């Protein structure tokens, strides 16, 4: 029994799955590394924007504004097509991770800054009353509390990063959308191929956003108490 789906049979769809799965894994890997480098960068940028050294503050601010102001697509192409023209050539995977980590750092720095700002003033006063250094205060008191506040928003942003990996189509990275597009190109079954790829995204993003809103509600309760 082969159901038809805009010209594609189930056999077609099944035959595409290994290829799409391989692309899906690349999308996940790009997401993982972008977050791995991007979120710590966001923390550093958030702290960097609050330091007293003016040059460092401006540097952090510039990195953040560039990462947030330019479309992620342009960041990707800037690194992938731009760096070779100054003699640095990087693979599409590396430029994907660099660009998405840059965007992640820029956006999460704002999320983390809001989290750090949410730590009550009394906590800062308490650290100075205890004679803690600024570094120790940040490390042991402010950052642990601030990050906890930021977690739901960071998780929500992680979903967007995963969705953002679809942009890597434009730099010839063999992620899931490139593969679905190639299948469409050879079979002319664009709709079913892209729809199957879309199902992969939905299968990750719908449960993930439900989880995020659940966590949001729980932390919300915690704050209210």
């Amino acid at each position, binding site marked *: 029994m082969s159901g038809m789906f805009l010209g594609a049979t189930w056999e077609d769809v099944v035959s595409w799955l290994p290829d799409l799965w391989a692309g899906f894994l690349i999308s996940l890997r790009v997401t993982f590394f972008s977050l791995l480098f991007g979120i710590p960068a966001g923390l550093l940028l958030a702290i960097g924007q609050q330091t007293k050294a003016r040059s460092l503050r401006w540097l952090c601010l510039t990195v953040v504004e560039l990462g947030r102001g330019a479309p992620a697509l342009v960041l990707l192409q*800037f690194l992938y097509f731009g760096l070779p*023209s100054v003699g640095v050539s990087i693979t599409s995977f590396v430029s994907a991770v660099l660009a998405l980590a840059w965007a992640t750092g820029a956006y999460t720095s704002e999320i983390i800054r809001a989290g750090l700002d949410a730590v009550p003033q009394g906590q800062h006063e308490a650290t100075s009353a205890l004679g803690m250094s600024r570094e120790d205060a940040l490390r042991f008191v402010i950052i642990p509390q601030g990050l906890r506040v930021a977690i739901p928003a960071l998780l929500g942003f992680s979903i967007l990063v995963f969705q953002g990996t679809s942009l890597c*189509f434009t730099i010839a990275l063999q992620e899931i959308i490139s593969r679905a597009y190639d299948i469409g190109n050879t079979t002319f079954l664009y709709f079913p191929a892209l729809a199957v790829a879309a199902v992969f995204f939905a299968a990750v993003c719908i449960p993930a956003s439900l989880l995020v809103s659940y966590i949001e509600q729980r932390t919300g309760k915690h704050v209210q108490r």
Partner: protein
Amino acid sequence: MIVGEFRQLLTGLPWTLALMSATFVVGALLGLPLMLARRSRFLPLRLLVVVIFAIVRAVPPLVWVFIVFFGIGFQLISMSPFVACLAAFGLIAAVNMAEIYRGGLLAIHFGQFEAAKALNLSRWHTFVDVVAPQMIRVALPSSATYGIGLFKESAIASTIGVQELAYQANYLAQTTFRGLEVFGMVGLVYILISLPIAWLSRILDRRIRARVAR
């Protein structure tokens, strides 16, 4: 040379602005009935809308653009890249605007509904004369922020050949082999244009907030 390239780049700006504003108009108009359907008393309709919202948001914009342009465009109804982009972005914008409107509606004090009921206003008049004006004011700042986001989001249209800013940058990078300058330049154009819009919306936000009844 640089000036000529910059001019070439800016030929994309009208397309970017056209796509952004058309998307916003489609989203703002379709968002309202969608939001009402989301709050319908008829459970199956409500569930259907919730499912549609979840699916629209779970699939990345680029994938929607491809599904419309290559999937529907190639196999069912052929359409221009601009129309395909507008359809895909319009769908996403309608869902997001519906959620923004809903946020505005939730912010309205329940006393307003009680007062409307006490005055024996019909459901229609309650919505049109009491709820909608307040809802739109509360929703305006988020709508403006969302509109600015569309300015950057529209770069995705370059992937299917809408000749907007990012497309021009691609074209220039391929013809001049100086990707770093070209993409750096287009990145700056995006930033320089979104800064004043962000500034305007912040002013607008402050003015409107001052006028919303709390």
